[in-house]
């Protein structure tokens, strides 16, 4: 694409991307929010068990760990990468930090040390991913598949056949899950703060805008002079760090951490992000979207559980939800693209815009000499 569209200049392409990003980023959120409110209203109206405030807090608390992991995946997915090792990082950090933090003698400083340790360890594990993807130029799927294997294996080695027990978890950590600050549970506050921080970072800083640019069009972003290599490292490190925090939250929530903790959870995190509008192709999605996606997923689960629909149906519905939401977002994206192409706003097409004349060909299998499944 950079061969066809001239790179007009650094500021113009960035402005184009940023503006386009804001537009694309807003629509799924509104739709999601509306959907969530609708489902919640429906649930409250029809199910007696759903109405209580405690139930709402349980929902929020219960989804906090996955929400943080979904945030981690969002960061990576925005740049058109993926990280399959977040669950393994979470588990490894959960056990390592959870078992050592109980032996610290620091008193009131323990929480700070604990979180710092989790962030540092998670970040280091994420750095390995970044190195593999950026330096060794491995595709992210392969790299994180490999680190997933390695980290989960390390988790087994580190636990050495035993596990972390709930009684070993220090009070302050377990208290994160059980305590409340005034009317709001601490857990929810932590998750909400992280969502807010990430949202600000993504939408209000150059760093965040770079991520969207890189995800929309990596070549144009590199040609425009964005520090793509550094950003790749940073996204994987951040993803790892967030997974580390999720690990600490996991210990707070479950207490018991064994060798298989976190196994399989990366798929739930990706699902939550995808449902929340984060595109696997990069370039669109928001932190708030990921959080809403997580909540929607949890709400669906709770709804189904309350309706006594078997847990087994839930998995099917979750799977269907992913496919449906991906289809919807793809359709919305295509609508948006067609609308933008119908009314061009600039004379010199910015290189970083996702639309371009060759992309005008409808994607599904037609074109000169193309075929259809008939």
């Amino acid at each position, binding site marked *: *694409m950079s061969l066809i569209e001239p790179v007009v200049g650094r500021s113009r392409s960035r402005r184009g991307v940023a503006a386009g990003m804001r537009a694309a980023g807003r629509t799924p959120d509104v739709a999601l929010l509306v959907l969530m409110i609708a489902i919640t209203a429906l649930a409250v109206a029809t199910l007696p068990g759903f109405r209580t405030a405690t139930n709402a807090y349980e929902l929020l608390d219960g989804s906090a760990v996955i929400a943080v992991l979904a945030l981690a995946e969002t960061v990576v997915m925005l740049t*058109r*990468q*993926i990280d399959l090792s977040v669950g393994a990082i979470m588990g490894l950090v959960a056990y390592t930090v959870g078992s050592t933090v109980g032996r610290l003698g620091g008193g009131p400083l323990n929480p700070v040390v604990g979180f710092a340790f989790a962030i540092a360890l998670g970040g280091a594990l994420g750095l390995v991913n970044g190195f593999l993807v950026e330096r*060794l*130029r*491995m*595709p992210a*799927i*392969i*790299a994180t*598949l*490999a680190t*997933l*294997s*390695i980290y*989960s*294996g390390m*988790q*087994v*080695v580190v636990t050495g056949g035993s596990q972390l027990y709930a009684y070993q978890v220090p009070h302050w950590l377990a208290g994160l899950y059980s305590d409340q600050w005034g009317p709001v549970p601490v857990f929810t506050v932590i998750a909400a703060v992280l969502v807010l921080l990430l949202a600000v970072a993504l939408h209000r800083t150059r760093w965040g805008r770079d991520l969207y640019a890189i995800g929309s*069009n*990596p*070549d*144009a972003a590199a040609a425009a002079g964005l520090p793509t290599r550094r950003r790749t490292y940073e996204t994987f490190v951040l993803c790892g760090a967030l997974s580390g925090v999720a690990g600490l939250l996991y210990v707070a929530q479950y207490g018991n951490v064994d060798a298989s903790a976190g196994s399989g959870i990366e*798929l739930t995190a*990706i*699902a939550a992000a*995808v449902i929340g509008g984060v*595109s*696997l*192709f*990069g*370039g669109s999605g928001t932190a708030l979207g990921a959080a809403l996606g997580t909540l929607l997923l949890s709400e669906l689960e709770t709804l189904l559980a309350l309706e006594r629909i*078997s847990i*087994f149906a*839930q*998995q*099917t519905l*979750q*799977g*269907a*939800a*992913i*496919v449906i939401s*991906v*289809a919807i977002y*793809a359709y919305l994206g295509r609508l948006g693209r067609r609308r933008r192409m119908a009314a061009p706003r600039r004379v010199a097409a910015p290189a970083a815009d*996702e639309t371009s004349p*060759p*992309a005008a060909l409808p*994607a*599904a*299998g037609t*074109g000169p*000499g*193309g*075929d*259809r*499944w008939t």
Partner: protein
Amino acid sequence: MDLTRWLRWETGLTALAVAMFIVMARLSPDFATTFTLQSLALNAAVIGFLAIGVAPVIMGGDIDISIAAMTALCGVISAVLWTHGVNIWVASVVGLMVGAVLGLVNGLSVVLLDLPPLAVTLGTMGAYTGVGFLILGGSAISNFPASLVNLGSGFIGVTPIPISSVVLIGVTALLAILMHRTTFGRTVFAVGSNRQASRFSGLAVVRTRIMAFVICGVLAAVASIFYLGYFNTAQAGSASEDLLPAITVVLLGGVSAYGGTGTILGVFVALVVVSVLESGLGVMGLSGQELSIAVGILLIVAVASSVGGRWLRGREGSGPELAPPPAGPGPAESSPQR
């Protein structure tokens, strides 16, 4: 042609397989025994079918992570039919058809709706597992007829060669012919290299991609038949631990994650490498998860060495194509991710 290029990766891999075998045999006297090798072969069958099945999909530029779920669901359906009096072989054939249908669903969703295969198969993975649980709940069906068990765990006549290995080799050969000697196979590689150009060249892109998914589904069903025969139990959650090894084997085998290159032979050799590694380390006492560290490291080393090799050769050398394709118009065409 491209034969020289392919052969270099596979040659290195074969050398690795042989070297690994020798090392394992040296490190542990129990390794080179008939019993260990037979267990190795029997265990490798399910992963082998899965890997050979998903390889065409990845070669075509897509991916399918629902393969383990398809295996489980096909097994569940066959088993349930059998408990209702259907002959086990008829039930197995039905299972094969179910596999084709599941693969078709994947293919239609990805290709016709133009959705990212990773997301779609992530969803179908959950959906298929869910359906399996809906059918069977959390229980299991066991004690299949001796004929099926013999297929999965038995040997050819009085030889020490497992039946499943022979079938695996046969299927591998079939698929190798399909991918490397037919127009279909060549179309798959073309589509994987450059979907847009293939479309403009008049290749049957849509049909080919969907066919690849269907083949993947059928082979997952084949895997399920041998799974039932070997493990003698059908559950909704079966084979879930085989997804990672299968993908690892395919990628290790030289198939590029971006599509367009790789050989079935390479996948088979990679299967041997991973099996020898796992079996050897297992005999030495490593647990299942510790093995996964080794496999992960192996994957990194393999990919890194191919990158390093290309760098040494000034970028013209062999090995799986790892650089992302030049950015084409639109995310559906140029994405190095799925």
